[in-house]
């Protein structure tokens, strides 16, 4: 900036807006927007396109001795499979409050974490859980049933062989 001789401006006064420097401004903006786009692009990274987790679908063979209303919990699955006169159905045992695993019992399900209770059909009967337990899709196969933890079905959906 050139100082006009004889101008009364003191060095303590704020400087007037400098003459527009197109090259400077242009590089500033292009650097800024490049950085913005780079940031947006790299923010895409933490969201995986393919989730590495155990497969959601699995097969169960129900034991002959399984009584009506008794839960069968396949090993390492947060699912309870039931059989009654109308057919076979599966209810997720993941609490809809904050994700603890609920325990199936005679009167329904009980969550150890904050005391939510669910009726045998998964409806909330007390506690902080906001939603009923999810019913999962069951497909009958050859002497087995295929359960898909990733697909929910309306409560009351039961399948027969």
């Amino acid at each position, binding site marked *: 900036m050139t100082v006009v001789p004889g101008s009364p401006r003191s*060095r303590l006064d704020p400087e007037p807006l400098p003459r527009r420097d197109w090259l400077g401004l242009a590089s500033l903006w292009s650097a800024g927007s490049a950085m913005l786009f780079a940031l947006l692009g790299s923010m895409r990274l933490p969201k995986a396109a393919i989730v*590495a987790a155990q497969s959601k679908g699995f097969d169960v063979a129900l034991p002959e001795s399984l009584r009506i209303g008794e839960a069968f919990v396949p090993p*390492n699955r947060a699912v309870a499979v039931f059989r009654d006169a109308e057919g076979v159905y599966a209810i997720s045992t993941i609490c809809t409050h904050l994700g603890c695993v609920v325990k199936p019992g005679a009167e329904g399900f009980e969550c150890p*974490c*904050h005391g939510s209770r669910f009726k045998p059909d998964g409806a909330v009967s007390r506690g902080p859980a906001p939603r009923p337990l999810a019913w999962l899709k069951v497909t009958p196969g050859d002497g087995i049933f295929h359960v898909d933890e990733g697909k929910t079905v309306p409560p009351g959906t039961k399948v027969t062989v």
Partner: protein
Amino acid sequence: MSTPALEELKSNLRAAPKRILDTAFRSGKPSTDRTRSTFIFGNVFLHLHSTRVHRWTLRWSTTLGLGLATTAAFLITLITGVLLMFYYKPYPDAAYQSIKDIHFVVPTGRFMRNIHRWAANVMVVAVILHMARAFYTASYRKPREFNWLIGMGLLATTLGLSFTGYLLPWDQLAYWAITIGANIAQSPREVTDAIGITDWFDPGGAQRFLLLGSDTLGPEALIRFYLLHVMILPLALVALMSVHFWRIRKDGGLARPAGADERLPDPAGAMYPVFTQAPAKTYSLAAIVKGRTAAVGQGPENTVPSMPHLFYAELGVFMLTTLVCLALALVSDAPLKELANPNVPENPAKAPWYFLGLQELVSFSAFVGGIGIPMIVLAGLGLIPYLDREDSGTGEWFGGSGGPGVVKQALVVGFGAALAIETFAIRFGWIREWYLAAPQLLITILNPGTLLAAAYGIYSVWLVKRHRSARAGALGLFTCFLCGFLVLTAIGTYFRGPNWVFYWSPSDWPRH
């Protein structure tokens, strides 16, 4: 056959050790005021300090050393944390084994782990107390408003460090506490589900997915927590700390009452006037700097050189903090439960103690306890310096309108309201126990957490009107929230057992 050149070389060699020292510390021994000053501003690590500090700053009652204790605790976690990293493996199951190795096999491993754990706890306690100190002495006021905001960032980062560290041992305690934590991140769904828009707009699900890197708590989650814990958050903390300290200097040192100079006892004999005449102007870097600093019109009579006065005080706090951490680490081991089991929740599954107050609220509504109330508290805290624009009582304990009287009253209101609402909820249950078909949105809006926050809010608005002062309202609100935090944390920590049922003592817990 010695030549002069060789002689010179020899004598240079002899003189080398002293010369190395002299060139490293160019100002010589810090024995005069001038050399003490150069000792500070000639050293890259020390020159964050000003060369002289006001005597008010050095009084114990000004800060209680709490900010320094937080810094000291952080440095201890930093050193012990780096040591733990020698053996820690951030992969499920291997992580648990490596912590077990650290605990039972590695020489001094258990001690280092204990120190790390305890220093982390000390840091959380110290940072909360430090914030309370800054609040009660009204030190957040002009020109320190922004440093209060930086402090909020430091608080959040400290809690984030603790939370991410909690998962690393990959034991039952860690696994279920983080499961609950990650689902809290997802709890905006409680609201989006209730109004039926989750399919299009699901910020909760996105947050949880980002945190866990998958839809279950597994290796991706552990590596993310590890990265946050040992790298991203410590770096963020160091960056924020640097700004925090730098701004203390730029804001003219610590806040002190307007009449501090008169109220200090006469300086000790060793002190002498530095200027015989008060300077009319201070010269900053150059005349391009606008404005006049607080030193204009007064000599630095009530200041003392930072070296040694401030440094010895700092060293004292550092040693004391270290002592506390070491003592705790010697008497009490960091917990380690069984290996994480995704099929069987720990019962009760408890987060670190400072989150148990929130967990208590979460047991009524996940969204309110996990996101709603924390957001309100953070926003409220952040706004304090911008709503209280008064200037009476700055730098004074419980200073400002209302003063200690309001604080005492607020203690009664704060404890009373929290205890009353919790007693009611524990004794009679909550809406769903009376009326099963109650819509979730009703419970989200009306629950002990929201009611308590509303009661505190109304009380503080009343205080603002009564004392015609935002400071009085702030004193009341801050004290109330502190009381609520204490009550809820104590209940969550000591009185909640399996299935989050209320028990007077863990000895009453059912055996399973």
